[in-house]
């Protein structure tokens, strides 16, 4: 299949492809957003959380979405402009889906204060918009084009190259170091957002002694490393032969854990969980939240 033929075909199919992309985005927003849309604490946070923190979260979501749109996205992007456009669409989808579902659940009703309605939707739109972009990579994994490429094993290099400019999820992920860390941040943010608002995070850390916390840290780091390097998942990262295991451990796993801790800290601060809490207690919260966060970070390296 020549490139020009593909281009011609994709041009003719553009509106349909775009609509399919939108549909996948909406499905992704739903799939990834539903656990949070059905969490009571998040509804409550929607009206009581401090507005400047909510605003910061909404702003921080923008570069993450652009990065995700560029890397996975629900359709092919080649320029920054396109990535921005897709990120924008994903955010919009996130807002729409959140509003729709919250209305469906009767959580938003006519006569509620405007600020409460906006707060609830805005907060839910963050995970939903990430979900919209992830939906493409998770739901559209084997479109026709990609199916061709997958079967075309003998034509290795070519398939990878075409993957780069034909489908939204390229076979070849040009993972530079910064991007790899960013991917981990997205994964950590996504899983943290799921659990951070619940009371359980606070409760668990109150039940734990510092010994438990130490064990949690070691186990989190161990799981992160094992997820990526030991258990052979799809897209497993293999080290060049002869490289000692601790190379990857120092260069990827430990920074990944720090990324996950920073994201946990940011999310907990955003939800006001760290206010007036002693630093040791705050650290315990962060360690507890980093447990799912680090799993999310490791999974992101594999799944995305």
């Amino acid at each position, binding site marked *: 299949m020549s490139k020009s033929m593909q281009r011609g075909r994709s041009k003719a199919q553009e509106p349909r492809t775009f609509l399919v992309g939108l549909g996948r985005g909406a499905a992704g927003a739903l799939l990834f957003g539903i656990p949070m849309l059905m969490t009571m604490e998040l509804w409550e946070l929607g009206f009581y959380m401090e507005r400047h923190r909510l605003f910061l979260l909404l702003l921080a979501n923008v570069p993450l979405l652009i990065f995700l749109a560029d890397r996975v996205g629900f359709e092919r992007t080649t320029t920054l402009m396109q990535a921005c456009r897709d990120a924008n669409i994903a955010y919009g989808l996130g807002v729409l889906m959140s509003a729709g579902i919250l209305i469906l659940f009767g959580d938003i009703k006519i006569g509620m204060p405007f600020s409460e309605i906006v707060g609830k939707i805005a907060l839910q739109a963050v995970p939903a918009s990430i979900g919209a972009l992830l939906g493409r990579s998770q739901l559209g994994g084997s479109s026709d084009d990609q199916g061709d490429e997958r079967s075309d094993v003998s034509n290795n290099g070519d398939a990878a190259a075409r993957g780069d400019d034909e489908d939204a999820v390229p076979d070849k992920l040009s*993972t530079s170091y910064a991007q790899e860390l960013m991917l981990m941040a997205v994964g950590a943010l996504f899983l943290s957002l799921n659990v951070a608002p619940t009371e359980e995070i606070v409760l668990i850390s109150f039940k734990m002694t510092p010994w438990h916390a130490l064990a949690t840290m070691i186990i989190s780091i161990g799981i992160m490393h094992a997820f990526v390097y030991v258990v052979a998942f799809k*897209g497993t990262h293999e080290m060049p032969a002869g490289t000692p295991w601790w190379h990857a451990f*120092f260069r990827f796993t430990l920074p990944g854990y720090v990324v996950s801790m920073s994201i946990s800290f940011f999310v907990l601060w955003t939800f006001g969980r760290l206010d007036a809490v002693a630093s040791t207690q705050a650290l315990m919260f962060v360690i507890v939240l980093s447990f799912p966060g680090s799993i999310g970070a490791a999974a992101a390296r594999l799944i995305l």
Partner: protein
Amino acid sequence: MTEISRRPHSERKDPHWVEWAVGIVSALLILTVMAWVGFEAITEEDQSPSFRTTIIGKNAIGSGVRVEFEIDNLSTRTAAAVVVRGEVRDGNTVVELAEATIDYVPAQSKSSGAIIFSTDPGEKAVWVRAVGYSDP
């Protein structure tokens, strides 16, 4: 052929020095956190929660007078469902009694809340203290 072998590896054989620098800084950060938590683990004494309450504000609202308070947990153990009782006393007799429940007062941390009295205490003494809690 496995799927793995079709995918290029992200790990290069000759990593940039920045990767090592980030790795070392991360290792130091994690070791610091572990040392901190480890220190807490070794030195922590098993104390029972002990509280100090302070009244930080009093203002009239529609249904009475709101007395805002802060409650400190001075110990290294967190208390849950802390019941704070407020009393308006005239000499030795309690004129009015009201309660508030605080979900958590974390170890060595502060929580705050308010008690609402239906009558203005005026010059009478207002007492606010914790009367009970549960272990989380």
